[in-house]
């Protein structure tokens, strides 16, 4: 587990929303999905996951509904709102610019 990286503050919102773009999910599943999709490279701390979910919901980018989980328990399923989809686009673009910039800088120095 030591070669796992904690998700950078600020990119977590983007990761959550990108994950939710596929299908509505509950909190645990989001964390699992991020971990699996990143080939176990990225780890989401629960301590930041739930505050982030609530913040995103509060900002109106995702919405929550109660539904049944895989083990048939009541679970809060989050999905992207219309505004959220637009936000993902914008954030992705921003992220690409940032990572290109950082990569270029790291390679040339």
């Amino acid at each position: 587990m030591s070669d796992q990286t904690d998700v950078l503050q600020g990119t977590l919102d983007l990761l959550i929303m990108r994950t939710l773009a596929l299908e509505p999910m509950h909190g645990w599943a989001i964390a699992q999905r991020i971990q699996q999709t990143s080939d176990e490279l990225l780890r989401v701390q629960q301590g930041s996951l739930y505050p982030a979910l609530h913040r995103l919901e509060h900002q109106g980018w995702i919405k929550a509904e109660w539904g049944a989980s895989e083990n048939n328990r009541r679970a809060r399923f989050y999905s992207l709102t219309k505004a959220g989809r637009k936000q993902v686009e914008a954030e992705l673009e921003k992220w690409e610019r940032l990572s290109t910039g950082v990569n270029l800088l790291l390679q040339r120095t």
Partner: protein
Amino acid sequence: MRLWHILRSRLRSIAFRDRRELDLSEELQLHLERETERLQAGGLSREEARLHALRLFGGVEQIKEASRDARGTATWDALVRDTRQGLRRLVRDWRFTTAAVLILALAIGANTAIFSVVNAVLFRRHAVADPDRLVNIYQNGRAGTPLVVTAYSTYMEIAEYTDIFATTMAASVPNPIRYLADGAVRDAVVEYATADYLDTLGLRPSLGRWFDETEVRPGAPLVAVLGHQTWNRRFRADPSIIGRIIRIEGLPVTIVGIGPANHRATFDVGLVTDFWLPMTAIPPMMPRPGRRDTPTIFAPLFVKARLRDGVTVSQARAAMDGLGRRLEAEHPELFRAEGEFALGPGMTVLPSTDVRIHPAADTPFMAIASLVLVIVGLVLAIACSNLATLLLVRGAARAREVSVRLAMGATRRQLVRHLLIESLLLSLAGGVAGCVLAWWGMRALQRVDFPFRVDLTVDYRVLAFAIALSLVTGIVFGLAPALKATRVDLLTTLRDEGLQPVDHRRLTLKNALIVFQVAVSVLLLGGTSIFLQAAAAGRALRVGYAVDGVAMLETDLRFAGYSESEASRVFDELLGRIRAIPGVESAALLRGLPMEVNGVAIVVDSGDGQPGSTLEAAAITAAPGFFDTLRIPLLHGRVFDVRDRADAPRVAVITERMARQYFGAVNAVGRRFRSPNDPNSWTAVIGVVHDTGTGDFDDDVLDPVGPVFYTSYIQSGALPTTVIARTFGEAAPLVAAMQRELRAIDITLPVMTAQTMAQKLAGSLAIPNGIATLFGALGGLGLVLASIGLYAVVAFTVARRSREIGIRMALGARSQQVVWSIARGVAGLTGFGTGIGLVLLVLVMLVMRAGGGSADIGIGSVTVYRPSIDPVGLLAIAAVTALVGVAAAFGPARRAARMHPLVALRHE
């Protein structure tokens, strides 16, 4: 859209807080379970998996807290929690709370009360339709600045400009008047107005109608419109008052309407007008004999006009300037004259929204109002710094609690918020209590039957003022103590407090606050002394006429329905009866009250045929027997007697001062003077009497008038109203005896004034005395507040130093030494504060002396009293302050000195 979403989400979070909490728990619970299941699938036992999941998960409560934070409701929740805790705490410390709320209530109450007066005078807006289409028109004076009032003849000219103004109105300055209601004669304020008055203002009567054109013709039956507030107050809003006849100045007047509900007066300074009468009612209503036959033309008027549609203010201004030039060409004599009616170039036209009182008076009035607010503000400042002292002391006493909270992980921000909320709660409670106090005080004030009434209703401005005051107080004066209280050294405070070093610094916040409070109290007490001095100076003036044993009785036979011939017979009988009262030496009939001055302009005959210049003088109404009754010595010539009938040539008795100043010789008998308005009104001087102080002391001290002359009311053709009499004995029983004689003649005759000369003089000192009382109350309040602050600081110091005191006493220090060591600190603070206060006070006095004489307030000048810097008075103030300071320190210091060393040592 997004804003709405956030708002809704926040509102929902607040509204469904409990359900949200449950949801959050359930959500996190599910996460834990899924994680446990995952780990179990990886081969761990159920118990191991659960523990591992929990460990991975971290603090459940912390996550909850962070999630709440993310919703933005955490602050709200914390606020609710802090408020609840603060309230509990304040209820528990009820002694502290009561003291603090009381302090604030007194200060905020005083401020709110004063502000509501200022509000009524300066801020409350006039209820007028389309105020920007309404213009005020003023005739200009010599300097080209607007005069206070405009002549009737000019109003008539202005009203001709119908192409500029849709309607034009004029209303007189408010006049005192008396009317009969419920069997009592009451004082009232009347305005004389034109028929277009209400239409020009764009208002409607709340009942009945305004008087019409036929009723403003000379000789028409008298009608009146009753002010709405007076209708409510005096006539219990009885609608049947319309059409009823009431007696005003003894004359029957038909009430034709009730004024608009929110219209108080034309000259809107908060004064309430009781009646509006037609302009033509001025001659019959004029109470002053000298002015009874004054043509209406010289009635001082305010002129307002409503612009025609499409006409701009500058067009109106141009038209009025043209009128001003024309008047100057037509009446050059008016533009050459000097004094009250000296006219100058052009006219001033201003939208009514730009004027509050008068274009030239608004700024000085604002300045005066600000000064008054600053003075009561000082009391508030004392109270606030006091609250700050109390909070500081309390904060220090709570150092341990604060450090425990900090140690438990509270952030400094949270603590400051917590403490601030407490002080805000305190100040809001103080604000509410202050409003109640102010409201109660003003109600008490409104019940007093003044001859005039100020509309002091509390409106939103007053309330907003009080609330803002409390909030600012709470934040500004709670913040510093809160910041200080949370800056604690955790280790020292948590350990036994005993070893904490004693704070020997002199310049602490606490000390500065105390010094400030003492200094301001001294300043306020100094203000009291200045006004007491002014009142005493008034009393000490050489009166120059008999006061002891002199009594007066005023009635008005018109209220009892007597005709003129009957009335003079009744007065002759009354005079005879009063002269027959045992002990009466001398008595005389008079109109009005004795020694009341009336400023007038005169032109003196220089004897060489040249038109003299206009001079200021003051007239006092006299009569045969007057000088004898008041023992005013005659120097030359004679006083009034039976020869000076209404149809005889006009004569006057002048004072020594007038003779010297205006005629150049003490013996001015045979010389003459006249009114500047009437070239044929020559009045011959028949005698010269000794100078006197006038009836109104404040006229001398605060508002001196020109040289005085006397005229006889009989020559104005008016009836007497008053009997004055002098007795060998006491004046008070004579007043009662005179009333008995009046009732013996006719029980229905109203008594308008029945008092001794001494009472009348005391009445004229009411204003300086009243101001001195106000200052005294504020200064006293300030001193009480400052002493509370001193007490708190000393008590706190003693508590902090109890261990040190115990050690000292255990080592053999005597209790006097202990008391002395504490008293030294208090004496230093009090002395320093008193010193600063005295220096400021002397500075204020020096400024008043330098600027003494008169101050222009735009619509006239007031005389500023020039205080003398009296070392005894200053010493007395210092002594009182020092005494209060020592008294405040004495209790806690004594307690410290009496402490048993062992107890003191164990004291925490």
